[in-house]
């Protein structure tokens, strides 16, 4: 049993996450608790209290008591807590300690000094239980995000803890991988484990969570039972800043695209890896200029590769972009496309927001830069170091530098992974703003709600080909939503509930 009694916490260093205030919560054995709320509400902080990262890793002012089965966690060293609480985090790329899958699953057990035979047995059991055989004996660097998360979960479960804590584990996963994680959670629940999961995406937990804890500004505002939460309805959820619980509750705003007669024709976009495996094979793709295009498809379909080739980043891809007057090869495309990357940290270089915008300009014009910042609500941050900002603010800085570059085609690679409702809407508004400026926008995304908020056209890719493209009118919307509803899993798991 987990008890939080009058817990208040304030981080030592000012951070994006809020602390906690007067948190009281009791979690029974075998319960599944969903922590939800807007970004910064304190759900991550609460998970850190349970797995011991607070106060042993994240220092600060802690008041109150956190007890597991009557023992105070903050007085236990982390390696002791690790035996009873397993943790899965949101970023698959930074969780693994070893370079190969077998060692990674064994990692937790090895740290406890368990005998070799015991560890091998546990690894085998876990691999079998979660059907991980195809992933064994491989380099973790080669795995996809979803596969990495599976290994992370197996690694944690090999230690056989009674409590599992997950902090936004699906933030970087697509629908299929999310479904796989859901299956793992069901297995754990059946084993009687206590699960605490902090999430923005609520739909996949719909029939798993026993209680839902809604947090706001560091406090627990309401604790719902499963039935009460489901009966809340889409509007109430939206007011709470939460994402909808099912696809059917999505509101469809049909956007009118900017009317142009100009067409952009992308031809001969092909790309393969060194070992010959083809990843992208597009003969011809017609897009009207000024459209706001959502690029959808399962992971591995070639969406990101397409975005990179379009942008001119892949040297081996020789595609051409035929515009109204000219043909743009790779080097010209580099100059007329701007990409807002999935990890914005890779494209921020200077020591102030203003400098970052000026960097994009051919000729530096401070006045213009300030105008752009104002348009994105960033003018107060203009002297701040870009890396000191929050994720959402960094993204806006990248968008500002996109605008400043005056380039006509802007691409976004998964801009809303891990974002809550409000921030997702903000990004959608910014994207729509770009579209209104006459720019052609491409968005690689898994987020149907986001697509409905700001896109006018859909390109559906599969295995490197464009298998469908359509405008987002009534029919198109239905087609797009049905793609997200199809989890491509075995029929037994199909609930028609997969959505973002």
């Amino acid at each position: 049993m987990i008890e939080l009694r009058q817990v208040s916490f304030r981080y030592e260093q000012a951070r994006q996450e809020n602390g906690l205030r007067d948190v009281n919560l009791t979690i029974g054995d075998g319960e599944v608790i969903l922590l939800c709320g807007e970004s910064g509400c304190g759900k991550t902080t609460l998970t850190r209290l349970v797995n011991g990262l607070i106060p042993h890793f994240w220092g600060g002012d802690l008041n109150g008591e956190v007890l597991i089965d009557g023992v105070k966690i903050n007085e236990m060293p982390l390696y002791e807590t690790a035996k009873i609480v397993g943790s899965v985090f949101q970023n698959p790329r930074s969780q693994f300690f070893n370079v190969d899958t077998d060692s990674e699953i064994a990692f937790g057990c090895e740290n406890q000094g368990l005998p070799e035979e015991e560890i091998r047995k546990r690894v085998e059991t876990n691999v079998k239980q979660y059907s991980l055989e195809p992933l064994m004996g491989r380099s973790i660097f080669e795995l996809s995000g979803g596969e990495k998360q599976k290994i992370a979960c197996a690694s944690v479960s090999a230690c056989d803890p009674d409590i599992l804590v997950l902090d936004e584990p699906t933030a970087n996963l697509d629908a299929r991988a999310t479904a796989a994680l859901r299956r793992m959670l069901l297995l754990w629940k059946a084993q009687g484990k206590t699960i605490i999961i902090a999430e923005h995406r609520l739909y996949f937990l719909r029939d798993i969570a026993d209680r839902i804890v809604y947090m706001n500004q560091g406090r627990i505002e309401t604790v719902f039972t499963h039935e009460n939460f489901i009966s809340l309805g889409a509007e109430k959820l939206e007011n709470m800043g939460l994402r909808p619980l099912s696809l059917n509750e999505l509101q469809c705003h049909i956007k009118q695209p900017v009317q142009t007669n100009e067409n952009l024709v992308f031809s001969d976009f092909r790309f393969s890896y060194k070992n010959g495996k083809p990843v992208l094979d597009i003969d011809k793709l017609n897009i009207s200029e000024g459209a706001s295009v959502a690029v959808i498809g399962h992971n591995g379909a070639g969406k990101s590769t397409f975005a990179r080739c379009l942008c001119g980043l892949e040297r081996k891809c020789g595609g051409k972009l035929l515009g109204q007057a000219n043909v743009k090869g790779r080097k010209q495309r580099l100059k007329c496309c701007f990409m807002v990357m999935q990890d914005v940290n890779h494209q921020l270089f200077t020591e102030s927001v203003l400098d970052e915008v000026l960097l994009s300009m051919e000729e530096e014009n401070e006045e213009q830069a300030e105008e752009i910042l104002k348009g994105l609500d960033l003018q107060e941050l203009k002297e701040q170091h870009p890396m000191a900002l929050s994720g959402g603010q960094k993204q806006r800085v990248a968008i500002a530098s996109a605008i400043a570059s005056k380039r006509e085609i802007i691409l976004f690679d998964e801009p809303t992974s891990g974002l809550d409702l409000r921030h997702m809407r903000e990004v959608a508004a910014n994207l729509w703003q770009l579209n209104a400026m006459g720019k052609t926008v491409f968005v690689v995304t898994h987020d149907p709600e986001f697509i409905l908020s700001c896109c006018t056209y859909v390109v559906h890719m599969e295995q490197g080909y464009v298998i469908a493209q359509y405008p987002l009118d009534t029919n198109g919307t239905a087609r797009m939503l049905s793609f997200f509803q199809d989890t491509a899993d075995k029929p037994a798991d199909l609930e028609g509930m997969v959505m973002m």
Partner: protein
Amino acid sequence: MMANEILQSVSTGKRFKLDPRTKMLMVITISTVIIGGGNGGLMNIAKPLLAAVPLLMLITSRRSRAAIAYTAIYILCFAGERLLVPITSGFLNFLIVACCGMLTRFLPGIMMGYFLVTTTTVSEFTAAMERMHMPRQITIPLSVMFRFFPTVGEEMAAINDAMKMRGITFANPMRMLEYRLVPMLMCSVKIGEELSAAALTRGLGAPVKRTNICEVGFHIQDMFAILICIFGFAAFFSSRIIS
């Protein structure tokens, strides 16, 4: 995606595996004896023998390209020394002497190192270190280093892409350095933080001896290799004593 790693992630071959400790001994022996060794006596046998060992290793592990490159460069330097030294003079002469001489001495060690690095996995290496009773203050940072090395490469590649995309070019070398290193360091610190949290919540740092399920151990081929190393060192020391 090709991750540039130092050691391997997964095992590539299964036949006649040598223990990582043996391979390390071989690298040490070959580089020490060939670089620093004198001439005459046993060294006349030891040096060519030790220089041939990496070639043999590369061939048996199917690294034919490396084996061919090794042989080719070695022959080139040898020939270069014989043919070019008498006909050149001055600084150019020195350069040729230096290059050919250095290469013939350094190449065997480096090729042996290449063999080690391409046939040993991180788990095997760490297991070998732990068997040698290396303290965890060394083995843990070492494993983290091997794990993080490719990640740094990935981050730098992404940053390079961003620079290409934004059109940031080679204006000022100091700026280029700044733009390449600063984002990489920021990202690395952040990833490092997350890595630590994930490792600590799985019990890293417990005051018990870590187990390692990777199998390493000495077999007959290791004994053979160790004998060659002993011979090499014997020749080395005897030539030192004589001169």
